């Protein structure tokens, strides 16, 4: 078989709630940890926050650490523009996340878990705490010792970067750390830590419930399973959709576009903008596609129709990044300001159109040298917009 299907296929696991979390939890906790890790590894689940690190491997590496204190952290600092799925998971099916955290704690040998919830979602706290209380009550009943608490953010996008999140939890400025060491060996409070995105944890519940094969059978090679997509922008049906990975962007636009889709921003403001002419050759997945380009994504899909100025879109992104960069490293702090001021200068005619090429070179440096994943990816939207909509930047 040369090609797997790139069609859009809906899936329905995450939000399907059969109120069976107690059963799934006690059943999974009765399995040997190694078996759970193997199950996750064979499912080929990759992190759904955007970076795509294999979840099973992350748990395995942390389990292998000999420290007596370890932590499980659920990254609910969902701040990427165009992403809103984690909020929905925590509102509708919080137990799946809590179960996954407890199983993770069991597998790696951690007794404490935290949900780092962005401050913008503070209104979720009362319901979430209620769920945690009930969950912990059940854990006690089955003699499983695991505590979960919520740690609230306070309005800083960069804290979604895992090491910045640790620093934030430690009461500091949320600035990304040098890596290595990686969280699996030295995370929160310097202890081995598994940090997973909300959705990733919710998918592990699916795997615990149905087995790895069911999950693996979804999606395409290298991009297994389903994924939540946050759909917004110029679309008649904005919302959250669970789809199999590997679909072509063409199919996606046919389903969600308004008939006049000019471009889609895949992966949020730090992702890539794909113009209409590349829809057909673009697939949504992690890597290693047989044809065309493929894009990893935290699941944000923003559609723009022909009424939108790509200059305005880029300007909006860059303002976001220059404000939300932590500011510690040169390429990201100054680079974002230069990109932001640069497109304005070109638009106003203060700099020649060729200045955009200088800025494109700068984005390469930002990708190569920034300290963290955010800094390395902020320039993605710049390069993909300027390369595809150069005229709109100038005139």
């Amino acid at each position, binding site marked *: 078989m040369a090609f797997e299907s790139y069609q859009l296929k809906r899936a329905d696991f995450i939000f399907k709630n059969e109120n069976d979390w107690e059963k799934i939890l006690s059943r999974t906790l009765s399995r040997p940890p190694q078996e759970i890790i193997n199950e996750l590894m064979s499912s080929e689940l990759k992190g759904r926050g955007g970076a795509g690190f294999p979840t099973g491997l992350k748990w395995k590496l942390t389990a292998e650490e000999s420290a007596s204190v370890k932590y499980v952290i659920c990254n609910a600092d969902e701040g990427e523009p165009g992403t809103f799925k984690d909020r929905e998971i925590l509102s509708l099916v919080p137990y799946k996340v809590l179960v996954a955290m407890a199983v993770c704690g069991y597998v790696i040998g951690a007794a404490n878990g935290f949900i780092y919830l962005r401050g913008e979602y503070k209104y979720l706290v009362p319901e979430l705490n209620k769920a945690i209380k009930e969950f912990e009550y059940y854990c006690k009943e089955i003699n499983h010792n695991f505590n979960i608490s919520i740690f609230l953010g306070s309005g*800083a996008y*960069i804290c979604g970067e895992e090491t910045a999140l640790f620093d934030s939890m430690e009461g500091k*400025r949320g600035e990304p750390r*040098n890596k*290595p060491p990686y969280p699996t060996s030295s995370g929160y409070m310097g202890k081995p830590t598994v940090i997973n995105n909300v959705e990733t944890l919710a998918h592990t519940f699916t795997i615990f419930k149905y087995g790895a094969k069911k999950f693996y059978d979804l999606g395409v090679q290298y991009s297994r399973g389903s994924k939540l997509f946050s759909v917004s922008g110029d679309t008649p049906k904005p919302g959250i959709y669970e789809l199999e990975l590997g679909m072509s962007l063409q199919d996606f636009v046919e389903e969600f576009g308004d008939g006049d889709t000019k471009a889609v921003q895949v992966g949020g403001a730090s992702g890539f903008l794909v113009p209409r002419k590349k829809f057909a050759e673009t697939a949504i997945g992690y890597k290693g596609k047989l044809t065309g380009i493929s894009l990893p994504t935290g699941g944000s899909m923003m559609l723009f129709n022909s009424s939108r100025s790509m200059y305005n879109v880029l300007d909006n992104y860059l303002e976001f*990044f*220059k*404000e*939300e*960069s*932590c*500011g*510690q*490293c*040169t*390429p990201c*702090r*100054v*680079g*974002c*300001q*230069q990109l932001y*001021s*640069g497109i304005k*200068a070109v638009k106003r005619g203060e*700099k020649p159109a060729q*200045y955009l090429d*200088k800025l494109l*070179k*700068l984005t*390469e*440096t930002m*990708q*190569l*040298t*920034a*300290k963290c994943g955010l800094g*390395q990816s902020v320039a993605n939207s710049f390069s993909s917009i300027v390369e595809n909509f150069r005229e709109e930047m100038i005139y």
Partner: protein
Amino acid sequence: MSEKINITINGMPVEVEQGKTILEAADQSGVIIPSLCYHKDLCVAGNCRVCVVEVVGQKRLSAACATPCEEGMEIRTNSLNVRNSRKHIIELLLSEHNADCTRCYKNGNCELQNLASEYKIMSQDFIPLAPQKKYTIDMFSPSIIKDNSKCIRCQRCVRTCAELQGVNALTVAFKGDEMKITTFFEKAMNDVVCTNCGQCINHCPTGALVERNYIEEVWEAIANPNLHVVVQTAPAVRVGLGEELGMQPGTRVTGKMVAALKRLGFDSVLDTDFTADLTIIEEGHELLSRLKKALVDKDKSVKLPMATSCSPGWIKYIEHMYPEYLENLSTCKSPQQMFGALVKTYYAKARKLSPDKIISVSIMPCTAKKFEANRPEMHDSGYRDVDYVLTTRELAIMIKQAGIDFYKLEDAKFDRLMGESSGAGVIFGATGGVMEAALRTVYAVVTGRDVPFENLDITPVRGMEGVREASIKIENPQPEWAFLDGVELRCAVAHGLVNAKKVMDDVAAGKSNFHFIEIMACPGGCLGGGGQPIPTSPEIRQKRAEAIYAEDAGMPIRKSHENPEILKIYEDFLIKPLGEKSHHLLHTHYVGRNRF
């Protein structure tokens, strides 16, 4: 011995200890990787990204300062990718920086300027960002000027203030494009817990933090024929000044320095070492008197341990952080201020000069001394005791401005009356030196014999350990000190305020049983002071310390109480240690300040 691993740097095989970073590996194999936020005195930040290198097989570049070597790593420090990226980063830093270099105090001694020059950044392609920001220059402190428009946010100053000094006057605040280095609520440096130690200046790669200079004021005083301008030079200056004038660290330039000062036109070139010796007499007797009150009179109100008071950075630190322990401080003024008070009294009288016609200038390795001279209580002569304080760096600037070829100068000698000193005065410039000098004198006063150390070198108090402890047992004292027979005099020495904190926390917890502690604000003592030549590093400070001890060893007189000018001032003027005159001119008091 830790395990060795093998890597290559630019194709060259290198064997390196496990755990070393790429930057360290390169350094050891003679490959220079430029850096800005990295400093040997500080923890690794990995912020500026100037030191990025290519690790073959990796998509992105790695910060050499923050990346540990791994077996088999192939590192390229000068590939096209590396060079282009590095150049971009320097350009970015310049775009955010007020790069008006010719009008900058650090022109010619700026790490960013050097990089720009190495990489031949000839054009300004990026948009200058500095003018868009409402930068202000903080000039309220008598010691330190902070200019945010020159700041490249490497955070070396913040790490210095926290890690070396434990002061945390400076912090990183805000984020993104508004991120900046500032103080609590963006107050002036003069209004926060800043100790004026100037270590931030010594560690700043650019002109964002510089000393407040008084060069022009001093030139004007020298040029005024109606004024008699006296200059005193602190011990550490003579082992640092050479560096600022192109010599190797550790070069002793005492004679050349004196000659240069004379050529600059000072009317009298004198030595702070003289009042260092005087400090030993006063402070030594103060210690003995406290011990007597505590041991003989059983006076519970006597505060022990007694702490030295020579370092104005330390004084301001304790005033902020441990105001309840101010009585533990020796009441002795620092040698600079003793000198200032005597110049306009004792010296003026002896030289038949009117004190209001005397300008007293001091050359110090220190920026806190500028603040100290400015303290309202430092007017005991009836005038401002010390008019202008210049750092070692400012003196070097004056020497250059005057067109003096420093290398070719013949050695000259200090003028007399307050120009003679002992080796004990010299070692004030190194951590442990005040303690050693005091012990040499105190032991001799009490027992009539020399301290029981070969060549008078009290090695236990020497060195660069953050906190050092020593004790000397007193045996067969002179009759009037009989109460000290068998007493073990316990001492501690700390340098760098983060180590002062350790000692003081022990005192506060009642865990300290010392009689006498010496604390210097700066790492290495005054020789590593905030007014000393830049750069600084543990190796450089070590070289300066060796020079100080060599200077001491070469002095004909090694003990403060044997300095003939000291004997003379007590005979002619002060009468006796801790006497009325001393009390008035040589001792002071302290003020409690806020910690927050």
